[in-house]
């Protein structure tokens, strides 16, 4: 560390704890309490980055979140590489490794800087005007080069192993910003016993107080400021009703007083605990909000204002007083505001030679000027800057009198230039909340006006700058917020809005400051930068207006001013000033680009939180899941469920396994886990009426103990869901739905019941997870069950499509005689927790009958052989019951049911609608591809109109050939015709057939 640049004492650092770190591979040391920026400055390093477009050498401009220049990447390891961090926000830790960005081969020597020489030819928006010929060259030649030149840091390429946490919180008063106003607000609110949360983006509370010279610090409540800060923070910290969140940025203000906070937990630690999340995102619902977000110092726009060593006066003060760093040895101060003077005097006292202070203001009545002169600092008024010198560090500045121009110009050697154009209140969050901003001529800034949420602003963020005034403002806001939050009746718009608007803030101490570009008399040389990071100059803004862009939003988008990673925190108001000047319109008429979340960039991981892998979405498994897993089942995702798709034996691949499983069911019996099917218990004296109105079927005639295939439409007439429905008792239906459809069917039922038919005495209860469902299917199914159940399984006693209540191995059961396979079949419903035991019992009993477990893929083939549809595969939301060949299900004598009226619309009755048919390839071994298009003729050339498409296609082992279902225009009338399925290789002839390929008479079903 360069001892000369670190003060002997003072600051909020611990000189006794040295920290080693590296920048671009070079080793340095800093001390505890440093940021990367302060540590580099203490080592005499000013060159910290390169600008986005021209690759100009850049040093730190500011000392906080608004920093546009000093962007670095911090690398912990290959997977923990974080680009685009502001060196001013990176807390130093032992071993920190930082790298500069957007330069090659090195920061000091960057070939990209050639862009700087081409600057005259690549003004704002140049890319809209060229790179158009030859047409294809854009993509293969120009764009790749532009992309390579653009971008800042590199993205990490390995998965981020760090953890991110989430937290919901609620409070009476949330205070954003722990500067003097925020702390006073928190203290006042807490005093009233309210639930208070206080967050600040910095690692310690204090805000502007942290930049004050402790020795010169003002007294607060009779105590020296540092002591007040210490004691106030401690008191808040020990209050159980108060939550303090340092290193926490309030990044977004959402409707109904919900604020998003990002807490950084581990980036500042050398060796964080592995369980410690890197960041935690808070969603805070606050009854009242107090914004005490302070203000951001405004730079001045003059030629050559971007060289390393040129920085904001307040930043320099912070380097000195908070970090004990001398940012230079010989300084020139350029200012439009009094705040630069104390900075100059304090730096001078610390040993920095202040060559002169150039005040752009005309008046010279300020006591500050007098104090400066008294301290031997020449003060130049009505001054301006013609240019600066130096490449990687400023080495001179050319000052002139406004009138004089080049004539009276004096070049002054210097290695530090301080500038201060006044202060821009941080109204970002207030604006995000949709509060109205109003322009304050006196302050040359936008201030919070009428709020749209329950929010107050206090202190510098509403133009109240003086310390005592800010403290009082904060205390008042905190007390009022607590009062409102705990008031019984909370109506009407937050009163402080009016207050904020009406009670004009006290005249800015130190004057208005300056928004725009300094007047440039003849002799001005060099570009004057408005947006440092994006390299937007006064010339670019002039060009945009010249080309007819008048809206500030257009100018922003055309020049990219304010669109860099700092989102224009230091540049927006100057840009507005310049545009208003060229257009001759006052700033409020030029308008203000809207503030959007986030206030400062927030990690994607912070938003994603713990939702990754298994926690990305719940993994729903059935009671029998473990059994299937142990048997090596291959699972598929169906909604949130994991369903066994097939049970391979050894190295068996899917087709072999499915073929084997299919034959087992056809020839002996199979066991299948159907637990995921949706189940809804419809109960009440009007249950049958409800079912009649909802489903297409007629239910009145369904006897207790019998089942019926139920078909559900949306009111637009298209098939929505289906499933077997059993009448368990007179007023109780056991309704089943598709696996994916369960929640939406129940929601639809509740909708009609509650909002259309609220007179019906019927209630709906989801029983999907109450029942484990074991399907036993196949000619041997009866034999398997016989020994276990207390029910007569004879066809006469329990025919196809019936249900019986009884017990299996002592466990209560609803036994369905139903089949989705076309075989003799049963579905054993038992309370879910008994599922595994009952499954095992059936498995054991099945051993004597070659029972085989099968999965969803096999189930799909078996049902396709029977022409049973799967809603969502053979239908797609544009299919009517008749299209699907399910017209028979419709209760003919019902006056109405959901969807009935829509079925009468012209387009729904056309004979040319696509109808479900079977498709048989001439070559029985060819299996069509799902979704393949069915054409009337062979050799149709694109664009051609298809007759339809293949919805389901499999190889059928039992039939020893391929089978397919498809939706084909006028399909049923085409049975027997030959059509062609178009595939890249050519056309596959298919014969249109009945969709029922196996046991069309259903003998096996009724066995």
């Amino acid at each position, binding site marked *: 560390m360069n001892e000369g640049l670190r003060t002997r004492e003072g600051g909020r650092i611990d000189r006794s704890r040295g920290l080693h770190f590296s920048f671009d591979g070079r080793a340095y040391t800093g001390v505890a309490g440093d940021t990367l920026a302060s540590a580099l400055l203490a080592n005499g390093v000013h060159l910290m980055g390169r600008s*986005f477009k021209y690759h100009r050498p850049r040093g730190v401009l500011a000392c906080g979140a608004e920093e546009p220049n000093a962007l670095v990447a911090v690398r912990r390891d290959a*997977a923990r590489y974080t*680009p*685009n961090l502001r060196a001013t926000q990176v807390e130093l830790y032992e071993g920190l490794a930082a790298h500069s960005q957007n330069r090659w081969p090195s920061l000091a020597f960057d070939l990209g800087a050639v862009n700087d020489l081409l600057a005259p030819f690549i003004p704002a928006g*140049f890319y*809209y*005007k*060229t*790179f*158009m*010929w030859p047409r294809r060259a*854009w*993509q293969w030649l120009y764009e*790749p080069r*532009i*992309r*390579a030149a653009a*971008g*800042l840091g*590199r*993205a*990490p*390429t390995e*998965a*981020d192993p760090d953890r991110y946490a989430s937290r919901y919180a609620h409070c009476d008063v949330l205070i954003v910003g722990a500067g003097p106003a925020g702390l006073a607000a928190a203290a006042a609110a807490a005093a009233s016993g309210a639930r208070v949360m206080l967050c600040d983006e910095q690692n310690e509370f204090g805000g502007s107080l942290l930049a004050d010279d402790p020795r010169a610090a003002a007294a607060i409540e009779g105590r020296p400021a540092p002591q007040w800060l210490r004691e106030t923070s401690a008191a808040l910290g020990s209050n159980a009703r108060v939550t303090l969140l340092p290193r926490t940025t309030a990044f*977004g203000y*959402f*409707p109904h007083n919900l604020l998003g906070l990002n807490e950084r937990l581990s980036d500042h630690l050398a060796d964080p605990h592995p369980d410690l999340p890197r960041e935690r995102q808070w969603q805070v619902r606050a009854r009242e909000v107090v914004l005490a977000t302070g203000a951001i110092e405004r730079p001045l726009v003059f030629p050559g204002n971007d060289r390393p060593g040129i920085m904001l006066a307040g930043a320099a003060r912070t380097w000195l007083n908070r970090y004990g760093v001398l940012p230079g040895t010989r300084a020139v101060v350029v200012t439009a505001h009094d705040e630069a003077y104390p900075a100059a005097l304090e730096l001078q006292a610390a040993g920095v030679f202040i060559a002169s202070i150039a005040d752009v203001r005309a008046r010279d009545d300020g006591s500050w000027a007098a104090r400066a002169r008294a301290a031997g600092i020449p003060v130049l008024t009505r001054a301006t800057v013609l240019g600066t010198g130096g490449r990687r560090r400023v080495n001179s500045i050319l000052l002139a009198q406004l009138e004089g121009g080049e004539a009276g110009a004096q070049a002054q050697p210097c290695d530090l230039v301080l500038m201060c154009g006044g202060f821009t209140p941080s109204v970002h969050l207030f604006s995000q909340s*949709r509060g109205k901003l109003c322009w304050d001529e006196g302050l040359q800034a936008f201030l919070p006006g009428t709020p749209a949420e329950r929010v107050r602003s206090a202190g510098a963020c509403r133009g109240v700058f003086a310390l005592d005034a800010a403290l009082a403002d904060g205390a008042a806001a905190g007390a009022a917020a607590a009062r409102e939050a705990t008031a019984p009746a909370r109506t009407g718009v937050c009163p402080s809005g009016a207050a904020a608007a009406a009670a004009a803030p006290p005249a800015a101490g130190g004057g208005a400051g300056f928004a725009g570009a300094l007047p440039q008399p003849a002799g001005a040389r060099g570009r004057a930068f408005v947006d440092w990071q994006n390299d937007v100059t006064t*010339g670019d803004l002039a060009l945009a207006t010249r*080309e*007819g862009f*008048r*809206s500030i939003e257009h100018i922003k*988008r*055309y020049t990219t001013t304010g669109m860099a*990673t700092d989102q224009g925190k230091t540049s927006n108001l100057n840009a507005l000033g310049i545009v208003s000047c060229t257009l001759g319109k006052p700033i409020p008429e030029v308008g203000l680009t809207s503030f959007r*979340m986030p206030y400062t960039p927030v*990690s*994607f991981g912070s938003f*994603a939180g713990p939702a*990754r892998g*298994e926690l*990305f979405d719940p993994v729903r498994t059935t009671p029998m899941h473990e059994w299937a897993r142990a048997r090596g089942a291959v699972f*598929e995702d*169906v909604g949130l469920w994991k369903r066994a798709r097939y049970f391979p034996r050894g190295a068996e691949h899917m087709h072999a396994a499915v073929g084997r499983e299919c034959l087992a069911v056809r020839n002996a019996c199979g066991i299948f886990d159907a637990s995921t099917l949706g189940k809804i218990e419809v109960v009440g004296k009007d249950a049958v009426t409800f079912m009649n109105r909802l489903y297409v079927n007629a239910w009145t005639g369904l006897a207790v103990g019998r089942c019926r295939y139920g078909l559900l439409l949306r009111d637009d*007439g298209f098939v929505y869901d289906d499933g077997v429905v059993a009448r368990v008792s007179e007023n109780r239906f056991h309704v089943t739905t598709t696996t994916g459809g369960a929640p939406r069917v129940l929601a639809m039922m509740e909708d009609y019941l509650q909002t259309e038919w609220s007179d019906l005495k019927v209630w709906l209860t989801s029983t999907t997870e109450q029942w484990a469902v074991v399907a036993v299917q196949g000619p041997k199914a009866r034999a398997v069950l016989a020994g276990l159940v207390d029910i007569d399984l004879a066809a006469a006693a329990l025919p196809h499509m019936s249900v019986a209540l009884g017990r299996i191995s002592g466990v209560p059961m609803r036994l369905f005689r139903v089949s989705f396979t076309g075989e003799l079949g049963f579905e054993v419903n038992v309370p879910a927790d008994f599922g595994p035991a009952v499954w095992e019992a059936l498995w054991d009993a099945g051993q004597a009958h070659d029972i085989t477990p099968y999965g969803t893929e096999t189930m799909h083939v078996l049902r396709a052989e029977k022409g049973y549809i799967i809603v969502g595969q053979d239908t*797609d939301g544009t299919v009517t019951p008749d299209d699907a060949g399910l017209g028979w299900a419709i209760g003919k004598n019902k006056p109405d049911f959901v969807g009935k009226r*829509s079925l009468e*619309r*012209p387009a*729904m009755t056309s004979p040319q609608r696509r109808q479900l048919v079977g498709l048989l390839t001439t070559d029985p071994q060819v299996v069509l591809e799902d*979704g*393949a*298009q069915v054409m009337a003729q062979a050799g*149709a050339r*694109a*664009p051609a109109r298809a007759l339809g*498409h293949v919805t389901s296609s499999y190889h059928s082992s039992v039939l020893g050939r391929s089978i397919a279902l498809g939706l084909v225009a006028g399909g049923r009338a085409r049975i027997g015709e030959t059509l062609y399925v*178009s595939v890249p290789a050519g056309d596959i002839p298919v014969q249109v057939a009945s969709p029922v390929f196996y046991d069309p008479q259903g003998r096996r079903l009724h066995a």
Partner: protein
Amino acid sequence: MQPFSGLALLRRGLSGQRGWTTQWRSPPPKAAYDALIVGGGGHGLGAAYYLASEHHLTNIAVLEKGWIGGGNTGRNTTIIRSNYLFDESAALYDHAVRLWERLSQVLNYNVMFSQRGVMMLAHTVHDAQVFKRHVHANRVNGVDNEWLTPEQAKAFCPLLNTGNIRYPVLGAALQRRGGTARHDAVAWGYARAADALGVDIIENCEVTGIRRNASGAVEGVETTRGTIRAPRIGVAAAGHTSVIMKMAGIELPLESYPLQALVSEPVKPVFPCVVMSNTIHAYISQSDKGELVIGAGTDAYTSYTQRGGLHITSHALEAICELFPMFRRLRMLRNWGGIVDVTPDRSPIIARTPVPGLYVNCGWGTGGFKATPGSAHVFAWTIARDEPHPLNAPFTLERFRDGQLIDEAAAAAVAH
């Protein structure tokens, strides 16, 4: 119109780029025009351009309540593709892609159309079936779209997490002709070209009423800048269409929802294409500037606030981080909301209306940007000839009455 070219940049560079003049004028509205377009987004400006360039209707104006391109044109994720399922949709969107391919040259304005390929991920067996149906249907329609295995998908986008992931990638549908374009440039390019043909582009001019004559036909509009007469009015106001059309007494099957998008801080080129996953709602590409451009979902409720909920953003980033776990450390720079007008079948309405002389182009939902040139082109035809172009003939208002829906959403479970 000052021609744009590299040479012009060089020449003017020698004189400090001072020679450039306005890209489009800012004329006061005339008392009357032959036709008016309400809505200065890409669809409206484009329609004006094609009315002037192909139908020789040059005494026309575009009325924009704010600044042109300030609506969804400037708020979307710029994804362009045409691999839609139904013949009608595929034809319309592919018409747009073909116009996109020459738009920079036609407008002499670099709209940066980049055919980087749009890859849509399949995470379930059902997804795979749906996407394969798309691939087949598109091939028959002459629209490029191909099925990729998980390995091929990974090869096309190497950062893709095909390993430890909640919903494994089972494959993908890739349209190589799909890609992205520079949204602002589309609005500005159409504006400049239309202006050069004499079209008046009138910003800060909000329509407050629609005037109709005794026979019920339109005869002009009331605006914040006075009455403007015109016998033909085309409305292309996206999320605000319902509001405008009510002024003519027309109720539409439309609902306006907030749709959010966001960008990361710019990084060096890392993402080569466009990746979409409708199953877990992730839409991502990288802009020329280096920002990752990410689409989030719509909120559940209708709104005109151009602002959505935090949980919608979080949901989108959960999906992005699951597919691209190396992006967790990248940071969101800016988030914004648009207002999308959605029809019951998720397909647009480009048609005449029951009011003579009044035409509407709306209902693009979340997919309007990709269609801009095609939509504008057929809308201009419809206005100029008072009859639909064959490509937009199916996209009528009446289809909802007759049940002749073009239900991309239902049929494909694919978001646009």
